[in-house]
């Protein structure tokens, strides 16, 4: 059993890691009362940014490149939604198309029409001394890449920041009522800019992690709906940091299930497992119809 269970759980954590980055960024954005449907475009930009930067300066530079690409995409979104007062949903859709198109164009421009086979510098899992030799927990939680370990630190930090700090409180106040927050003297647009850009950095890191820590190469459209899945993860996590991290695990499991079921030689067509995360998203969104915990401002995205 362990021979199947440990690789499955290991793959769950590995595939959940990029999802968690994107979803945690979106939590912050949505708590400020803005939904960024363009997360998909941000992630794919992070994928290519990560690939190109890592090729130039190694994995660390790669993650910086991914974060920067995500930041730029998010800045474009913020410009349209906050400055030009454009509809957030349509802007997000355009951002997704822009990200998919731009990365495809740049990728083929840089690497040729076929998109040369690439030896991307990638990050290997590191076994944490001591912890990794624990039974079951060790190989699953403590034999991961540095991005997963950063997440272990980030989740409590972010939860604390949102719940206990002045800025975290201001952010949540804006998400509940923009006008009340404004009346209380909170710089609404400045904080929303910050929240959207943070979401962009995290989405970019999601993309870079996907390329450098999970897949090891870039393919066009490789984000494969993860931006939209991350938005569903936020709903499932009830817009809370810890809840969202746990929800990301569930979706990581849905992605990892295809490895498990292939390993046991399941007879069903593999496309069923490809579709599974998307089906799960629909089911989860439908099951969680009680939206009382959503930031009130999200309901009126005309702001």
């Amino acid at each position: 059993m362990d021979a199947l269970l440990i690789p499955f759980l290991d793959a769950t954590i590995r595939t959940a890691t990029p999802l968690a980055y994107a979803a945690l960024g979106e939590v912050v954005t949505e708590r400020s009362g803005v939904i960024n449907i363009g997360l998909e475009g941000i992630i794919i930009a992070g994928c290519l940014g990560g690939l190109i930067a890592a090729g130039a300066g190694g994995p660390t530079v790669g993650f910086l490149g991914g974060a920067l690409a995500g930041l730029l995409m998010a800045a474009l979104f913020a410009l349209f939604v906050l400055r030009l007062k454009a509809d957030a949903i349509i802007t997000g859709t355009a951002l997704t198309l822009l990200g998919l198109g731009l990365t495809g164009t740049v990728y083929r421009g840089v690497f040729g029409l076929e998109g040369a086979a690439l030896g991307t510098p990638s990050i290997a899992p590191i076994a944490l001394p001591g912890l990794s030799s624990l039974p079951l927990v060790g190989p699953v939680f403590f034999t991961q890449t540095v991005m997963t370990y950063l997440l272990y630190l980030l989740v409590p930090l972010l939860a604390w920041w949102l719940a206990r700090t002045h800025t975290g409180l201001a952010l949540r106040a804006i998400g509940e009522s923009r006008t009340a927050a404004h009346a209380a003297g909170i710089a609404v647009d400045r904080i929303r800019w910050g929240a959207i850009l943070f979401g962009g950095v995290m989405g970019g890191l999601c993309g870079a992690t996907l390329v450098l820590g999970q897949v090891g190469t870039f393919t066009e459209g490789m984000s494969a709906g993860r931006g939209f899945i991350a938005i569903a993860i936020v709903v499932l996590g009830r817009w809370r940091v810890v809840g969202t991290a746990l929800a990301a695990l569930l979706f990581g499991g849905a992605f990892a299930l295809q490895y498990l079921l292939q390993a046991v030689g399941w007879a069903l067509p593999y496309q069923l497992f490809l579709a599974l995360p998307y089906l799960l998203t629909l089911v989860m969104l439908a099951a969680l119809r009680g939206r009382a915990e959503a930031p009130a401002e999200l309901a009126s995205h005309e702001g």
Partner: protein
Amino acid sequence: MTEALLALWDGAFGSSYAIWSATLVRSAPLLLLGLGVALAFRAGVLNIGAEGQFLMGAISATAIAQSMGGTVPSIVMIPVMALVGALAGASWAGIAAWLRQRFGVLEVISTIMLNFIALASISWMVRGPLQEPTRIYPQSAEIPGPAQWPFLIPGQRLHLGFVIGLLACGIAWVVLTRTAIGFRIRAVGASPSAATSAGGIAVAGTVLRVFLVSGACAGLAGAAEVGGVTWALYEGISPGYGYTAIAVALLARLHPGWIIVSAIFFGALEAGASAMQRDAGIPSVVVQVIVALVILGVLAGSQRRVIAGAATLGAEGRR
């Protein structure tokens, strides 16, 4: 740069073949898809699942054409394919409509998820139930002769689907501007609460019907693509037509008449871009960038007036 632009122009309008067999052939699906998106947006339904609805239409039309075989005459076969394709598209959209009305699921997310599920379905179909008899290639067998839609001009590839697209735009124009149904759609899109209280309009029913019609347009486009262009089903049957359709609709300001102009513009762009890739080595995905920039340009220029209805939808439409 000049070389690339020349290749683009030549591919789109450089010869009668480019116009009648490339540009307009690629405009045909965009007419129906763009119209479907525009109708939905008009009623405040953000259906961005045209891609998936198109694929389901294509799958169903292929399946029905294969199962009816080569003995059924075209006069029966073609309407049946169109109908089945439209029904499949409407059903696929119907899932998102049901999820929205029953569970309050944002249709932006559900339709995108359904796009991915449709892609997985087509991937399975062409390796499973609909695979060609030798079972080597991931595609269906060619559909029988009577199921192949007629060309409009001898020697050119322009097919019946283009005319159907034009007719659909014309009908939609009349319905939207001249009938009570059209008024209800516009009222619901402009403000669901005002439509209920002042107009006595059943918002949920109107939204559902528009969503289904929007999906039917996309499904019909899928049937027309199989019947008129590819004659077989394979995974890459749509180069993202469903997403281009959003730009088609927005550039046309959601007006059925302007859809015709805007669909031909993007059809030319798609046709020119493939020529540009072939002749000048510029990747054709650049079209997607242009599509996105057009949407952003329309947004920046209009400051959400174009989709006023869509913007109020989150506030009141889901209750």
